[in-house]
C-alpha cells in the first residue's frame, strides 16, 4: 500500500474530537483515522488538549447520592452494545453506517454506482464505485465535499488519491475525479450540501438519486 499523503485538516480533527462535525463528515474522519496513523496521533493530541481543558474546568459539587448510585450499578449487566469492526475494505465506521450489511449499490450509469449511507439536511454520506478510467460527472459543490479512497485510486485536477487519501473540495473547486487503471475505485464521499452536476442528465437525475 502506498503511503497516505492527503490528510484530515487539523481543524476538522479538533471539531471531530469536540463532536461538532456534521455527522456525514464525522463518518469520513473516523474512517480516515482508522486508516491513517498520522491523523490518529493528531486526533489523540486533540483529545489530550480536551482532557487538559476538562481537568482545568471549575468543579461543581455533585449530589450526595450520585457516587453511591453509580457504585451500586457497577455490577449491573452493561447494556448490549453493537460494535462494528472492519470487514474487507470497509473500516469499522463504514460498517457502522452500513449497520453491518453489504452496500446497497444503485447504478448511476456508465458503470458508476453508489450506495447512500445516510442523507438529511445536514448533509449526506455515500459509497461510490467507479470503474477504471471512468470519470465522476463534472460537478461543483455547495459547501464542502470530502472524498476518501477505500480501494483503487482516482486523479483529478488537484492530484492523485490512493487508498486512505482524503480529498477536501470546497465550492470553488470544479473537478473531474477519474478512476485510475487497476482495481475499480471505491470511495467514501460526504457533503454538507447537495452536489451540483453540470451535465444535463445527471442534473435531471439528481433529485431521484439524492446526489
Amino acid at each position, binding site marked *: 500500500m502506498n503511503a497516505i499523503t492527503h490528510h484530515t485538516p487539523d481543524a476538522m480533527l479538533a471539531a471531530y*474530537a469536540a463532536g461538532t462535525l456534521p455527522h456525514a463528515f464525522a463518518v469520513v474522519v473516523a474512517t480516515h483515522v482508522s486508516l491513517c496513523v498520522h491523523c490518529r496521533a493528531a486526533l*489523540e493530541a486533540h483529545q489530550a488538549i480536551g482532557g487538559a*481543558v476538562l481537568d482545568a474546568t471549575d468543579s461543581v459539587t455533585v449530589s450526595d447520592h450520585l457516587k453511591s448510585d453509580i457504585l451500586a450499578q457497577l455490577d449491573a449487566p*452493561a447494556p448490549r452494545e453493537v460494535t462494528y469492526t472492519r470487514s474487507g475494505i470497509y473500516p469499522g465506521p463504514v460498517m457502522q453506517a452500513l449497520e453491518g450489511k453489504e452496500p446497497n449499490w444503485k447504478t448511476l450509469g456508465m458503470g458508476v454506482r453508489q450506495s447512500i449511507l445516510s442523507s438529511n439536511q445536514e448533509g449526506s454520506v455515500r459509497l461510490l464505485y467507479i470503474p477504471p478510467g471512468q470519470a465522476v460527472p463534472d460537478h461543483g459543490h455547495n459547501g464542502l465535499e470530502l472524498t476518501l479512497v477505500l480501494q483503487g485510486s482516482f486523479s483529478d485536477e488537484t492530484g492523485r488519491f490512493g487508498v486512505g487519501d482524503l480529498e477536501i473540495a470546497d465550492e470553488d473547486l470544479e473537478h473531474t475525479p477519474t478512476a485510475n487503471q487497476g482495481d475499480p475505485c471505491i470511495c467514501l464521499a460526504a457533503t454538507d450540501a447537495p452536489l451540483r452536476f453540470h451535465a444535463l442528465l445527471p442534473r435531471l437525475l439528481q433529485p431521484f438519486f439524492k446526489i
Partner: protein
Amino acid sequence: MLAVRDTRDRDAFGALFDHFAPRLKGFIMRTGSSAHNAEEIVQDVMLTVWRKAHMFDPHRAQVSAWVYQIARNRQIDIARKYNRPIPDELAEDPGSEPDASQILAVEQETGKLKQALSTLKPEQREIIEKAYLGELTHQEISDQTGLPLGTIKSRIRLGLDRLRHELKAMRQ
C-alpha cells in the same frame, strides 16, 4: 485508572469519581445542560469509564484525555439518539509488557501541555475552551488564525512522534 482496568478496584474507581465527577459536571453544565441533566450524563460517563476500562491504554493517553472523549461521545449519543462514528480500535499486542518509559513520556507531555495552556492569554484560552467544549464549528476553528493550536500541539509532538512509530510497527 490502571487498578480499575486490571483488578476492577472499586476504591480506585471511587477516587476517579471524586476527581472527575465534579469537573465533568462543571464541563457539561458549561455546554448548557441543567444541573440535573448534567448529573445524568456524569453517571453515564462514569459507568462507561468502568465498563470500557479495558480499552484504556496509558501508552497513548492520559486518563483525562480518555475521559474527555468518552464525555463528548456520550453527550452527542444521548442528544442525537444514535451512536457517533468511532475509529477502529488499535489492537494492543497480546502479551506485550507495559513500557514504563512510554507511560511516563505521555504523562510528561501532558504536563507540558497543561503548562502551555495555563500560560495562554485569557482570550486565547477562552477560544481553546470553546473549541473543545464543542461550541465552535470546524470552520470557526479553522478561521481562528490567532489560535496557538499548532504551538500547543507541538509541545506534545515528541510523544506523538514516538507514538506514531509504535503504531506503524504494530501495523506491519
